């Protein structure tokens, strides 16, 4: 079995320019099944842009994206999400006046393709409601299930971000700084949730906190100025002089 067969998500030579600014240069990454990969790099390196490219929010100028062997480069974001490629947002992108149970149930209904059934009451989607409650419970949001999202504390909103992504039953989960803005003790809890994700889901997460990265990642991709500097195990990355140089003088959450 070649490594190509084992990879769930592959990008090939992704390039993107905004005017004269090259935000992605020849980015080729490979995510195997069950990956726990971290994407790191200084501010402005293009990490979120890369996620936007992979999920289809931005169109690349050139290059390919393959999900489980299928070329999805021309497929829109919703189509990729339905095929199991989901992301969370660095800035909470939630539904402020919806409650968590409603939001997650919505995501489940969309996945099942029944969201458009306007003749059935919402309460009749028993299985979807059960499933979303279970997801909320696993993320510790069960108590907050019927409170409006905008009333939830920030940490719980970050968890809801993940809950929405999980509701789509992803095969590949791209987490954009999932613990951004979350205090230290809570972020550890959040990442233990990530750790507890089923083994067959492949996870790529952007993170600035190196202690979290080294704890949870099995491999690290270093992105600098839009191109991949290095992709290897944490130990190799940690001791690579080029990586040190890139981070020299950069204050990071230590």
């Amino acid at each position, binding site marked *: 079995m070649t490594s190509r067969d084992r990879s769930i998500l592959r990008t090939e030579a992704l390039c993107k320019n905004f005017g004269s600014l090259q935000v992605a240069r020849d980015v080729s990454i490979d995510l195997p099944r069950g990956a726990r990969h971290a994407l790191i790099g200084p501010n402005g390196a293009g990490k979120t842009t890369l996620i936007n490219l992979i*999920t289809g929010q931005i169109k690349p100028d050139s290059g390919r994206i393959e999900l489980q062997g299928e070329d999805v480069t021309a497929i*829109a*974001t*919703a*189509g990729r*999400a*339905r095929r199991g490629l*989901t*992301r969370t*947002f660095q800035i909470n*992108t*939630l*539904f*402020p*006046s*919806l*409650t968590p*149970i*409603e*939001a997650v*149930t*919505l*995501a489940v*209904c*969309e*996945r099942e393709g*029944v*969201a*458009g*059934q*306007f*003749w*059935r*009451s*919402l*309460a009749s*989607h*028993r*299985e*979807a*409601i*059960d499933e*979303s*409650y*279970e997801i909320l*419970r696993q993320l510790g949001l*069960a108590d907050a*299930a*019927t409170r409006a999202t905008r009333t939830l504390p920030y940490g719980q909103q970050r968890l809801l971000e993940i809950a*929405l*992504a999980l*509701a*789509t039953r992803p095969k590949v989960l791209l987490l954009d700084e999932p613990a951004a803005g979350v205090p230290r003790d809570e972020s550890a809890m959040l990442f233990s949730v990530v750790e507890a994700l089923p083994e067959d889901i492949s996870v790529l997460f952007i993170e600035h906190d190196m202690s979290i990265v080294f704890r949870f990642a099995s491999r690290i991709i270093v992105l600098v100025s839009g191109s991949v500097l290095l992709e290897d195990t944490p130990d190799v990355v940690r001791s690579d002089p080029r990586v040190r140089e890139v981070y020299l003088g950069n204050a990071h959450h230590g």
Partner: protein
Amino acid sequence: MSEDTNVRQSPLSSNEPLAWLKRQSRWSAFEWAFWLAALIPFFFFPTYLTLASQIAIAALFAISVDLILGYAGIVTLGHAMFFGIGAYVAGLLSAKLGWGEPITGLLLAGAFAGLVGFIASFPIVRVRHLALIMVTLGLGLLTYELANAMSWLTGGTDGLFGIDTWDIFGYFRFDLWGYTAYSYALAVLFLGFLLSRRVVNSSFGLALRGIRENTPRMPAIGSNYRWHLQKIYTLSAAIAGVAGALLTQTTDTAALEVLSFQRSADVVVMLILGGTGRLYGAILGAVIFLLMRDQLAGINPQYWYFWIGLLLMIVVLYMPKGILGRLTDLVRRPE
């Protein structure tokens, strides 16, 4: 609640959130009271039955706009185009084809308006913000001009002649007092309301609210949200068409004014007054708007413009959820 028949017999079942979800769509006492109160004009204000019919028709139109504006977030300044199309279909059926049967007239008007709505929905869902407002405005104005130009068909500014609506079910004649007209309009309003209520309390309604609350999130959860928007836009156009047909059938007139920008703007004003995204807000807004206009414009048209303008500004500044929203907040506070 009966036993949870779900396969997973987990002690941590979703009974509580399920009960909560069911409560959201249950009929409250206020609702029963409201619909009973709608019968009051028959007994206590028989001289106002014509106005009551107008209010019921406007309420149905306002509900149709609430579906897209309040629930899906599509700001429209041209929805009168569907109201007017429905009005003219009903009018033409009677005036040109001699078919004055009301119920079928309603259905045909609604169907045709819905069809036009479906076609219009393709461009509509592809623009946002000012471009969306301008496209809806442009389409509305365009339809008016088209109808004006086709005066051989529409009768131009004078309107259609020779509309004669038959008795409902062959039995109920449209009387001069307006008993039949109001019963008819109220019944159709109620049915339209029931349908809309069903839609907004479904998973589809939830999806619409999701689109309104955060459109970019929808594709991220795999939603074909544009298709949802097209569906609700079509439904909204059909209901607006039914409202227009109601107007034609209860007044036996159909003139260009039914397609006017004024009508499109009025209905949006009604929605803001009453409160968007609650269906009842649409009805309340129609009641307030038409009652005020009836009382104030009778004195002096300027009087009416001044006060409605002032009320509008006050509501936007101080009552973001509309008058109904403010009332519900006041009622809920003791709890």
